[in-house]
């Protein structure tokens, strides 16, 4: 029941908003739909806590601790982003960057995007997972190009082509997986892509085919995660799309993509009994961290800056999943949570700051604290949180990852530390110059919604100080399920 509401609300909502999305109350409807989705997600979470894993919809959907926490997170950030986007989009309309019809497209695609991410997360069928990922890509292509400027079209095209090719690789990987599964699960085929069935027989799957399949799946979904060297689309898409879209791309879509990778890794590792998947994840992760940290220095656009920061953090998460084992997985899951909360909060603050300054170039943004202390503090605290300053949750997860790395992969620790240091210096320097100094901005016609920023940061702080026992229990269960190490 909760599950049906969870998926039907955004799906139906996207249709409703496709018709209604340009009217006056559309933004409120968007928020209301997101709220219903969030409530359904909460109810579902409660039920999974109470009753354990859930298999529904003719076994096509499967909910376990690993994805239910992502579902809850997705629904939550979806809600806060909807709240944030209400005043943000109004300002954009008054500045003439959007019109009512674009707004309708935005609302409709926003809900569709949410729906597709939720389908991807809860799907038990790896083929359906692929379909939902592709649909999510397509809906975000339209969101990224919402402003119809040359730069946004270019970003959208790059996004489409790169992710299109990437996701085609993932389809080939899925085909190979099905090929291996069909041999074990029988030629009837209908159940041979169900993750639960595959996980039950993962030891019998043909290792050669599975290792090949994993390469394709990792490259395919890895493109969506933004792993170097396939990350090119990510900064452009973040910088040129509307800020709420940047927030959900960074905060949610990357998580969903990494979720897909990890699901596949579990299967492949079970079959291979070798460290190939782990090593590949660690390699790609480390490369992304290092590359992103150094690219941070060259950025002049504030949204590109934080987009590269997302690549860096996805690299860290990928590396942690690559190490595997209970602690590293736990840390990776925690890091996914806190990163997506922090990064979306940062993008909310950045969006308002850029609106005030009338530009996304960092040299044009000055004196945020003097102009609007809440935005200034939001950006400052958010940046500190994302840089891993204690007592925020990012510190806790990064600390766990580093200590595990010291134990399991000592060679990687100095590389990680150097990259984190470089990233710290790059981001902190830039943010400082934006927050302090003399005010230059203009007044905005609508009050910004800053509640989401602080709500997110408060949660991150809370997770840094104290992880509620049921949450920790979830993480542990998910970490056990992912295994490895």
């Amino acid at each position, binding site marked *: 029941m909760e599950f049906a509401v969870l998926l039907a609300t955004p799906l139906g909502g996207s249709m409703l908003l496709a018709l209604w999305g340009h009217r006056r109350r559309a933004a409120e409807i968007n928020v209301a739909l997101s709220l219903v989705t969030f409530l359904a997600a909460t109810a579902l979470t409660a039920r999974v806590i109470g009753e354990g894993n859930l298999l529904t919809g003719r076994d096509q959907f499967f909910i376990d601790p690993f994805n239910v926490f992502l579902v809850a997170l997705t629904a939550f950030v979806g809600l806060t982003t909807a709240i944030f986007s209400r005043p943000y989009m109004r300002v954009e309309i008054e500045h003439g960057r959007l019109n009512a019809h674009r707004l309708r497209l935005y609302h409709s695609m926003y809900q569709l995007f949410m729906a597709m991410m939720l389908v991807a997360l809860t799907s038990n069928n790896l*083929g*359906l997972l692929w379909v939902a990922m592709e649909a999510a890509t397509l809906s975000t292509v339209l969101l990224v190009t919402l402003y119809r400027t040359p730069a946004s079209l270019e970003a959208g095209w790059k996004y489409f082509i790169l992710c299109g090719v990437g996701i085609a690789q993932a389809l080939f990987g899925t085909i190979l997986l099905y090929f291996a599964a069909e041999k074990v699960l029988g030629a009837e085929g209908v159940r041979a892509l169900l993750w639960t069935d595959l996980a039950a027989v993962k030891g019998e799957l043909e290792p050669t085919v599975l290792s090949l399949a994993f390469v394709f799946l990792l490259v395919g979904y890895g493109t969506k995660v933004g792993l170097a060297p396939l990350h090119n689309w990510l900064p452009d898409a973040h910088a040129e799309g509307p800020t709420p879209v940047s927030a959900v791309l960074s905060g949610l879509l990357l998580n969903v993509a990494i979720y897909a990778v990890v699901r596949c890794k579990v299967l492949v590792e079970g079959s291979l009994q070798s460290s190939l998947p782990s090593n590949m994840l660690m390699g790609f992760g480390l490369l992304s961290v290092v590359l992103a940290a150094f690219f941070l220095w060259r950025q002049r656009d504030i949204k590109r800056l934080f987009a590269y920061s997302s690549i860096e953090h996805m690299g860290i998460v990928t590396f942690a999943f690559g190490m595997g084992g209970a602690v590293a997985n736990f840390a990776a899951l925690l890091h996914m949570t806190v990163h997506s909360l922090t990064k979306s909060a940062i993008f909310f603050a950045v969006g308002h700051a850029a609106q005030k300054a009338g530009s996304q170039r960092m040299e044009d943004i000055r004196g945020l604290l003097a102009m609007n202390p809440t935005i200034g503090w939001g950006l400052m605290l958010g940046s500190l949180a994302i840089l891993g300053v204690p007592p925020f949750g990012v510190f806790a997860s990064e600390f766990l990852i580093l200590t595990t790395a010291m134990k399991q992969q000592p060679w990687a620790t100095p590389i990680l530390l150097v990259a984190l240091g470089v990233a710290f210096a790059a981001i902190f320097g830039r943010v400082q110059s934006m927050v302090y100094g003399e005010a230059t901005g203009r007044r905005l016609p609508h009050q910004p919604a800053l509640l989401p920023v602080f709500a997110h940061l408060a949660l991150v702080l809370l997770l840094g100080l104290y992880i509620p026992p049921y949450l920790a229990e979830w993480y542990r269960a998910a970490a056990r399920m992912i295994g490895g190490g």
Partner: protein
Amino acid sequence: MNFTSLDLQLLNTCAALLLLVSFAMLSQRRIVSLVNLLALQGTLLCAATLLLAWRTGQHHLYLSAALTLALKVVGLPWLLHRLIRRLEVYWDTEPLINMPGAMLVGLVTVVFAFGLAQPIAELASTATRNAIGIAVAVILLAFITMITRRKAMSQVVGFLSMENGLFFGAMSATYGMPMVVELGVALDVLVAVLVLGIFFFQIREQFDSLDLHHLESLREDQ
């Protein structure tokens, strides 16, 4: 599942012709012909699927063949032709590599693809397992077509050709994916092309051309 040698020969011929069409796409400079080649590729795919459906008696393959016919032989080419007429893009500029060069790269790619498919083909139990290598080759050749073209339209044709290769791969390795997945994939492809159609108009509005040269301004040092 009893294949006579004639069936296998026909299937192999379809596979070989698919490969040939991919090469033709690699060297074709006229966008209209490129779309026609795409339709031809779809037709071959459809024929192979029908033959396989008839021989293996798997009914969902008939549906898959009908889907291919409706979407890849009729629907998408029609849509693309309309777009070409409306946008008046008939020729691609000289590709990045000249034609003999592209042929050579293509041949090397095919050898690579055959090598890649070798372990899979050895494990496959389908009668069409030899065609897996061809499917991989079609995918890689479509990829090369995409990266050597400058016009958005040709890139899209390359993308769709890649999708054809993937379908053919799924068919020859496992007699097709489960129907849910195939429907979903087909739907996604359709939506992708519709989205691209919208996209083309926007690009043209902004740049007065579909040449991707204009789309090179976003760089790292911005």
